[in-house]
């Protein structure tokens, strides 16, 4: 059981903030989460008290920075159940997925090979693949979605052939909140020697993710969606696959030696991917964020969000002016529209009432084909949200037809 009042006190952004003269209701957690003080303070502590570079200093401050930085790798490894050397620090999910596409796929796939995606994917799990498909003359195949917006397993199986080399798929969709059955997909894929890449940006913040249990080959997530700082993310890769992945960042800190005859020897993974001074403060902040979530408990977070989601859905279903697109899944994402109100007009209206939601296509520009709407409003919940906030949100939804109020207050 979560102590929500205590939790809310730990977030400066939840301390009596207002927006457009209303108390702030922050329901845009799928875009980015709020940060607890301990994360902000951990980053400040580095800048205030042991600012120095990592990996190369002969003095005490640098040793401390180095130790704190590297200990984060262990915290991440325990968090997702992998080895320390399978944790690559990146700038976020986008960079992680780009590293798989340009570092692994570009070097290991060949003309006419096939990659399976689906229409619910975020731009960051589509565009890198389009780019390497163009470069290598690969074929991109889209797996059909079932009525819940999940990738349909039996249809996926039928798409697989001897040319299929990669399946790249979100664990949880950022628009529909639907959860894909990654475990079954990796089992099927590995029977055909297919590499499975998982975009877990919307999963890792909200539930226990175990890469060994999933048996995925790569998995990407961001720090800022799990109470950590922006600019830091993780790519998990099975070690042998990381060895087959080229670095996109060549420079200091990632090479073992080089000479004037253009010979270079790179460090082993994960260090060979981390050229240049890394985001040290952000890595330290990420460690705090993961510790913070672990202290609350990922299972409790998941079940509380599920409770909030069902509470919200039941309330919204009582309104006849709201169309919900994903009432039957458990994640904290609510995709909806106010009937007869264009999604972005609704977004401005919610803003005018102090409620932060997203509207549009949420970077999943192929998904409107599936939903048959131009765009949606997305309210996305996290463990610090409350039923009282949902009540306020539902009250505002009731009056959604008056959306032009936003401009004539």
């Amino acid at each position, binding site marked *: 059981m979560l102590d929500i009042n205590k939790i809310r006190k730990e977030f400066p952004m939840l301390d009596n903030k207002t927006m457009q003269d209303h108390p702030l209701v922050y329901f845009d957690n799928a875009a980015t989460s709020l940060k607890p003080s301990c994360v902000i303070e951990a980053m400040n502590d580095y800048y205030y008290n042991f600012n120095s570079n990592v990996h190369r200093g002969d003095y005490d401050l640098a040793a401390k920075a180095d130790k704190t930085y590297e200990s984060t790798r262990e915290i991440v490894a325990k968090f997702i159940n992998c080895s320390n050397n399978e944790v690559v620090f990146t700038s976020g999910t986008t960079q992680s997925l780009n590293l798989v596409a340009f570092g692994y796929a570009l070097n290991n796939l060949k003309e006419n090979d096939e990659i399976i995606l689906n229409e619910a994917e975020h731009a960051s799990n589509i565009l890198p693949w389009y780019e390497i498909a163009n470069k290598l003359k690969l074929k991109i195949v889209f797996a059909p979605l079932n009525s819940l917006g999940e990738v349909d397993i039996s249809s996926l199986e039928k798409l697989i052939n001897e040319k299929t080399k990669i399946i790249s798929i979100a664990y949880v969709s950022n628009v529909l909140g639907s959860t894909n059955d990654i475990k079954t997909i990796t089992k099927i894929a590995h029977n055909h020697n297919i590499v499975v890449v998982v975009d877990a940006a919307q999963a890792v913040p909200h539930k226990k993710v175990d890469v060994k249990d999933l048996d995925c080959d790569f998995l990407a997530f961001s720090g800022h969606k799990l109470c950590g700082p922006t600019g830091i993310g993780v790519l998990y890769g099975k070690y042998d696959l990381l060895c087959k992945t080229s670095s996109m960042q060549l420079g200091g800190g990632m090479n073992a030696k080089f000479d004037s005859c253009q010979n270079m020897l790179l460090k082993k993974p994960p260090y060979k991917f981390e050229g240049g001074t890394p985001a040290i403060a952000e890595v330290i902040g990420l460690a705090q964020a993961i510790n913070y979530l672990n202290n609350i408990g990922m299972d409790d977070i998941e079940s509380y969000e599920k409770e909030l989601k069902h509470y919200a859905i039941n309330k919204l279903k009582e309104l006849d002016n709201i169309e919900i697109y994903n009432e039957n899944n458990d994640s904290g994402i609510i995709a909806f529209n106010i009937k007869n109100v264009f999604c972005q007009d609704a977004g401005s209206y919610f803003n*005018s009432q102090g409620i932060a939601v997203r509207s549009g296509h949420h970077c999943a520009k192929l998904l409107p084909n599936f939903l048959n709407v131009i765009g949606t409003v997305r309210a996305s919940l996290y463990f610090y949200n409350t039923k009282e906030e949902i009540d306020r949100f539902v009250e505002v939804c009731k009056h959604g037809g008056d959306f032009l109020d*936003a401009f004539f207050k």
Partner: protein
Amino acid sequence: MLSLNDPMIKRSIIMDHYENPRNKGLVDDPRYLKVNMNSESCIDDIDIQILIENNIIKDFRFDGVGCTISTASTSILSELVIGCSVEEAYQIIKEYDNMIKEEPFNSDLLQEAVVFKDVSKQANRIKCAMIGFNGLLELLDSLKG
């Protein structure tokens, strides 16, 4: 001149242009100049066509997907500029731009477009309110070569 102080009238003008947009629908005519406009802050995706003869905007057409603000503002713009000279159209765009930026502007030139005076209350809709005007500006600038 339209009263800037009567929100109900302004609302009904916006809704009227949103629900019954004027000059909507593109034409298949090579004499028209065309531009596609989309906004970073919204999912607006609007095509605009203009026909200019002897320095006069003879026609202004638009089509596409847009929120209330982008659709209504482009519809109002179309009525404002049809029949104007290129120079007059530039002046209208400039006055409108001033209004959106909350600077002094000539409301007589803007007519119904003054309903968007308060759009800056919703920062994310500013680009929507500008989309038609920016499209027209791009087309007029393209004439200069």
